[in-house]
């Protein structure tokens, strides 16, 4: 059941209706039944794996929670009698016990993910395990990472363990988010799912607006550009020069429209029930450098990697010690940067692997990691060059150049995950610099499955999207905050007839201009495959 299908909208509408029909204390039960029904309707053969991850994580969470409370009770009871060293030793003993439990749960949770998603073909080829009949469970990367975050947060004593397995099952499988995130944190989402919200007209209208906006991006922009990208990437040998660059550019827009559109639909459905899921995008193509880009793109994944990979590696005593030794050889700056560089590569290796096991995904991670590391290493040179050229880093011209430069780096990097393989990605990348003398560029563009009207529609809708993004960006700069709700708040201040006119025009645009396949089903979301 695709998030952009009519069936999903009917399903979500019934769920929202039932949610408000039952008393507050039973609302979470409605959500759990709806979430499991959604999963069984979408991916019945793999349902058992969601149950498995839920059970493992729940039991593991209770065990870690027990260690936390035992240590706390011990520390409280002996607060005045133990020396500082004894307190440290007691804490270390508790940490070791917790680490063993965490390691076991992670091996089990990620083991399921690894077998079903990464090693299935190798295991089958080696005759060790027959995975031929098994599909990859829907949303497995999303719910596994969300479960791992829960375990890490318990280990760090940031949260209390859930004591109700049915409620925890809802946290793991909440239906709007299980397909493609955002990967929520327990302390952000769980209480909202469990507490039950009274009906508020504002929640319903805001949620509906978000859903409509998601459909606008997915059906009008993403699914239209998917036709062009499918043609060029599917027949890459036939294209070179500007056509390949245009396809990469279109894919850069397509994946943003597709993924953020899906997230808007998911967040919108949740918002209709008063549940505020985290943002996953913050106008990423306005970033000044690639680090900032990853702080604005797929935020829930990059923050997951930041909190559970980057920080632990960058701040680890082991890499810190090596960094200190390297200071004597390479100087203070490089020595200090060493743990950060290692952490960056670990982070982007994980981001690459998160998308899949193929080498093209690893290359995608390494490409991003290397660009960021080069940026760090060359920073003093760049600062010196700017000073010599009398260019102020705060000037509008330089800032604008940085945005264009970062966008170009992102566009080039997109070739890795989208191309059929790493080899194809390289071939396509270098074919961009080969000029096709035979057919004029405009003629090639008209042969990629889109008509002139299609290009006009995409351009007009992207212009609307760009204007909204600029408005939000300006609002963030002037008023502070992240600006993600600035446009909606401005809409709220408009007179009612104007607001309705905008919304109805948007709805009409989705119905008339959306790209629909057989049976009026939209094409699948790209991130649904992860």
């Amino acid at each position, binding site marked *: 059941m695709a998030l952009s299908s009519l069936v999903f909208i009917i399903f979500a509408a019934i769920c929202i209706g039932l949610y408000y029909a039952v008393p507050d204390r039973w609302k979470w039960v409605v959500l759990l039944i709806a979430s499991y029904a959604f999963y069984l309707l979408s991916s019945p053969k793999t349902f058992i794996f969601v149950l498995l991850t839920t059970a493992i994580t729940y039991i593991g969470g209770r065990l870690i929670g027990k260690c936390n409370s035992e240590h706390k009770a011990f520390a409280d009871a002996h607060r005045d009698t133990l020396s500082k060293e004894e307190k440290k030793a007691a804490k270390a003993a508790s940490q070791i016990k917790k680490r063993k439990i965490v390691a076991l749960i992670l091996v089990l949770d990620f083991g399921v993910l690894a077998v079903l998603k990464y090693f299935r073909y190798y295991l089958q080829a080696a005759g060790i395990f027959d995975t031929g009949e098994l599909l990859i469970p829907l949303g497995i990367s999303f719910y596994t990472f969300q479960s791992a975050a829960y375990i890490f947060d318990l280990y760090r004593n940031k949260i209390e363990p859930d004591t109700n397995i049915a409620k925890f099952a809802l946290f793991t499988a909440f239906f709007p988010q299980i397909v493609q995130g955002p990967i929520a944190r327990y302390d952000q989402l769980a209480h909202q799912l469990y507490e039950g919200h009274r009906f508020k007209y504002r929640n319903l209208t805001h949620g509906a607006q978000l859903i409509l906006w998601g459909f606008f991006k997915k059906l009008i922009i993403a699914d239209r550009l998917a036709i062009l990208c499918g043609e060029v990437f599917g027949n890459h040998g036939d294209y070179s020069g500007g056509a390949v660059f245009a396809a990469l550019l279109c894919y850069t827009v397509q994946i943003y429209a597709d993924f953020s559109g899906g997230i808007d639909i998911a967040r919108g459905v949740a918002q209709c029930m008063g549940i505020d899921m985290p943002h996953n995008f913050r106008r990423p193509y306005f970033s000044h450098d690639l680090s*900032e880009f990853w702080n604005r793109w797929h935020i829930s994944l990059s923050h997951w990697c930041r909190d559970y990979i980057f920080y632990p590696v960058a701040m680890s005593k082991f890499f810190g010690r090596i960094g200190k030794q390297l200071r004597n050889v390479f100087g203070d700056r490089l020595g*200090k940067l060493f743990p950060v560089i290692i952490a960056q590569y670990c982070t982007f290796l994980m981001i690459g692997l998160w998308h899949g096991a193929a080498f093209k995904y690893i290359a995608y991670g390494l490409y991003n990691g290397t660009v960021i590391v080069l940026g760090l290493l060359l920073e003093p040179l760049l600062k010196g060059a700017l000073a010599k050229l009398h260019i102020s880093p705060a000037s509008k011209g330089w800032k604008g150049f940085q945005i264009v430069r970062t966008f170009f780096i992102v566009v080039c990097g997109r070739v890795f995950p989208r191309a059929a393989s790493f080899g194809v990605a390289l071939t396509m990348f270098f074919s961009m610099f080969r000029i096709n003398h035979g057919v004029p560029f405009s003629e090639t563009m008209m042969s990629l499955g889109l008509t002139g009207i299609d290009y006009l529609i995409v351009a007009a809708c992207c212009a609307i999207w760009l204007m909204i993004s600029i408005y939000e960006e300006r609002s963030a700069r002037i008023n502070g905050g992240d600006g993600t709700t600035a446009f909606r708040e401005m809409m709220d201040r408009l007179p009612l007839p104007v607001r309705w006119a905008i919304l109805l025009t948007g709805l009409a645009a989705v119905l008339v201009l959306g790209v629909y396949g057989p049976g009026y089903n939209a094409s699948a979301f790209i991130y649904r495959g992860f």
Partner: protein
Amino acid sequence: MRETVLGILTGIRGDIDFENETRLIDDNILASLDIVAIVGEFNDEFDVEISVEDLVPDNFNSLDAMVELITRAQE
């Protein structure tokens, strides 16, 4: 201690008004690279052990919050 902390912070990010900003993490003003650099400097300067567990927004949102974090770590 406050002055030393302020000196470290402005040494790493001279473009931020640390005296008045109170949402350094919540508003994405400080990046993860800044945090790692700041923690490294704090650990060296004040001989404390700020760990990954301490990396929560409340501890780094403002100058005062960071001073408080170091004070706690010294106890």
